[in-house]
């Protein structure tokens, strides 16, 4: 759905986005995680045809970023929630959405239907005739999301959609993003909120001018530090130790009534190990995977790049 290859953007001497290559599949929630100034907004702006690329390739569906005739087609199929919501304060919530519906040439009946649908979904229907300028930050953010969806875009770009929101509003927005996944929308989410990325995204790219890592939240956690599986039993005996030593590819240590395994891929290797323990007579009380967090992975990658 979205594909980039060595996508680069320079502002004079400053390289804002450096040879970034990734692919976002249809119906996927893809997160771009990175510190301030990492190039996340610049990437989104390039993909939304708002600014040009310096070099590299990028495509949305079958359309080429940078091709003038394709840019109008791309804009029709995407929705953007920018980091500054940019609503018209002196228009009502309804008028803000209706205006954008008209700009996207949504037929009147469908437009009215969509305005009502999204305002209701985001809990703003009661405020439809209230000026957007009087809204709280959370309400403005929800209205900006509704605005980006008014023409039923296939792809939604969201730049820090929960930044500066209170926890309750942030939760509502996150739940709404997840509900969009059920509608098979492709969502490109810029965030520096690790918890949000972990909860919402199918895959995450860690960006700090360059793309540092790419994978599912679990893959990124596993990409740094140790992953250990701890099997807690009522008792560990030699038979159990011999059984697991035969099949475990990693290091095995005993700690009182626990056996600790260091594994490359616990999700894949754990079932066989637990089966061997049970077959050797072990009475398993719990199985726990301890791994580095996404935060550990993120900080390690960003620090490594700084060094």
């Amino acid at each position: 759905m979205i594909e980039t290859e060595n996508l680069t953007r320079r502002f004079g001497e400053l390289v804002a986005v450096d040879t970034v290559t990734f692919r976002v599949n249809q119906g996927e929630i893809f997160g771009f995680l990175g510190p301030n100034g990492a190039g996340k907004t610049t990437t989104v702006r390039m993909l939304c045809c708002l600014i040009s690329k310096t070099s590299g390739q990028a495509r949305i569906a079958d359309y080429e970023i940078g091709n003038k005739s394709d840019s109008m087609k791309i804009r029709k199929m995407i929705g953007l929630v920018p980091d500054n919501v940019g609503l018209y304060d002196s228009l009502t919530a309804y008028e803000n959405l209706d205006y954008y519906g008209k700009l996207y040439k949504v037929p009147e009946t469908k437009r009215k239907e969509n305005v009502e649908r999204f305002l209701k979904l985001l809990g703003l229907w009661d405020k439809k005739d209230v000026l957007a300028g009087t809204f709280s930050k959370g309400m403005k953010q929800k209205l900006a999301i509704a605005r980006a969806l008014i023409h039923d875009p296939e792809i939604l770009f969201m730049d820090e959609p929960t930044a500066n929101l209170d926890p309750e509003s942030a939760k509502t927005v996150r739940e709404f993003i997840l509900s969009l996944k059920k509608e098979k929308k492709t969502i490109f989410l810029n965030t520096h909120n690790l918890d949000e990325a972990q909860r919402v995204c199918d895959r995450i790219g860690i960006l700090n001018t360059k793309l540092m890592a790419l994978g599912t939240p679990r893959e990124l956690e596993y990409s740094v530090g140790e992953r250990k599986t701890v099997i807690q039993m009522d008792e560990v005996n030699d038979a159990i130790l011999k059984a697991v030593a035969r099949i475990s590819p990693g290091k095995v240590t005993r700690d009182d009534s626990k056996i600790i395994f260091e594994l490359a891929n616990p999700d894949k290797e754990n079932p066989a190990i637990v089966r061997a323990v049970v077959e050797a007579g072990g009475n398993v009380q719990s199985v726990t995977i301890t791994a580095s967090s996404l935060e550990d992975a993120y900080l390690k990658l960003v620090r490594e790049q700084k060094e």
Partner: protein
Amino acid sequence: MNLGTSLTIAAKELKVLLRKKSIISYIIFFPLLLSVLFSLVVKNSIAPSSGISSNYSLGLDSLTYFFVVLAAILPGSIAAYSIVGEKVEKSLEPLLATPTSDYEILLGKGIAAFVPPIFAVWGAASIFMAASDYLTYGLLSFNYFPNWTAGVMLFLLAPFAAIFSIELSVIASSKVSDVRGANQIGGLMFIPFMGVFLAGVEGLFAFNASNLLIFSGIVLIVDVALFFLSTATFRREEILTKWK
């Protein structure tokens, strides 16, 4: 370019304008005030009870021409406000992400900046001309207005002056970041037209239909050039990356 998109943008701009009381009062009361003041000038200086002034024609034409100057003052502020207002509200990024072209956006904003002031100018000029006819008829024995000179001033030169002001405001508004700055810039667009007014009062320029037609033609050519310059100045990348 889709005219429907520009009209959608213009309709939204007008809706926003109509909710700004300060702008509405500026557009309505300023021209009305001038029409009343100019009528008083006619009553007291051009057509006093002692007899009509010998150069009544210059006086009436000069005062009518001032509505052209007004047409160059009013839309500039609105156009600059319209662009700077988007800058202040940071609403240009989502707008630019829609499938609209620069021409459509600028035309829409231009229409919204053009229509209310030009109607206000025509309305105020009509009041002034009616009052002038009422005050001078007894002395002239004919209605001075309407005449070709006033027609060229109000229906050719005034609209072209308004367009001139809008185009220059679009160009200049990229250099300011607040509404006050926009208003100041908008207020400066009348200078060339004021220069012609002063030249007319000093006898260096005759306010007749043929001179005004030539002047209108020159302003039209400048307007066309400014249109291309203003669209070239409206650079999406710069707006998003440099406007603060």
